[in-house]
């Protein structure tokens, strides 16, 4: 199999398109995972607080 990475005179258009696509995927993955992690921790923290206050009331 022969790979052609030399885009010649079109390199100035081809590589930015691939770079932009990679950047968009990195942002989508990082933002989705960070947001999920943040809210999961917050929900767990509040759940733990609720358990503690329940115990204190007893």
């Amino acid at each position: 199999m022969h790979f052609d990475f030399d885009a010649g005179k079109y390199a100035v258009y081809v590589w930015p398109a691939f770079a932009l696509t990679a950047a968009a995927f990195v942002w989508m993955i990082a933002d989705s995972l960070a947001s999920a992690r943040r809210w999961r921790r917050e929900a767990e923290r509040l759940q733990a607080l609720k358990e503690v206050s329940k115990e204190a009331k007893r």
Partner: protein
Amino acid sequence: MGARDPHHHPLDFLTNPERFMAFSRWAAPMFGAIAAVLAVVGLVLTFAAPEDYQQGDTVRMMFIHVPAAVICMFIYLCLGVASFLALVFRHALADAAAVACAPLGAAFTVLALATGSLWGKPMWGTWWVWDARLTSVLVLLLFYLGYLALRSALEDEQKAARAAAILALVGVINLPIIKFSVEWWNSLHQGSSTLFAKPGDALPAVYAWPMLIMTLAYLSAFGSLWLVRIRSQVWRRKARALALQQAEG
């Protein structure tokens, strides 16, 4: 063997938040892994494909531009269906699904427009032209941004969800306009060269395969990220409910 629960619905894993969380816990990484494998195969085929006799090396942009354009429309369809279910059946998970896919749809639309522009300059001699296909995709981006803006502009979350769902449903009208724009109006943009191609316009296999595989990679990536973002919404709502309970004492 236990008796089958008569109230159990086959789609419970999508409509019941607890079952959804159990399902998405393994489904999200599975779709992510499938997307990674497909992307590697697709990129190998992308750079192994020969130069086009007319477009030269710019033909490789087709394998990242077309999937982005297809997926941004597919995501809007998902947004429309989820918004409809949230609006009519007031289903919280449907609303979470709607709000979770909008940022991803906006990102794929930006990608479709930007990679299209980078392809258009060497092929058409211009970065942008106000033709029907490009303009209708720009309108799609505005619908996504409008949806996101509306959701964050209103303080009452239920009102915001309802208003944004109505906006999302109005925007569904734009999907057939995008699809058929190149047939209804004169356009610089080419017509379909894949599933709906006219005889003789279909892509040769050496270009069709990488495009199909990259489209499936984008689709799997979206599936994975959508599930992750819906999970995030479920946790956010749980945190909000717990915070409210605490505030009420």
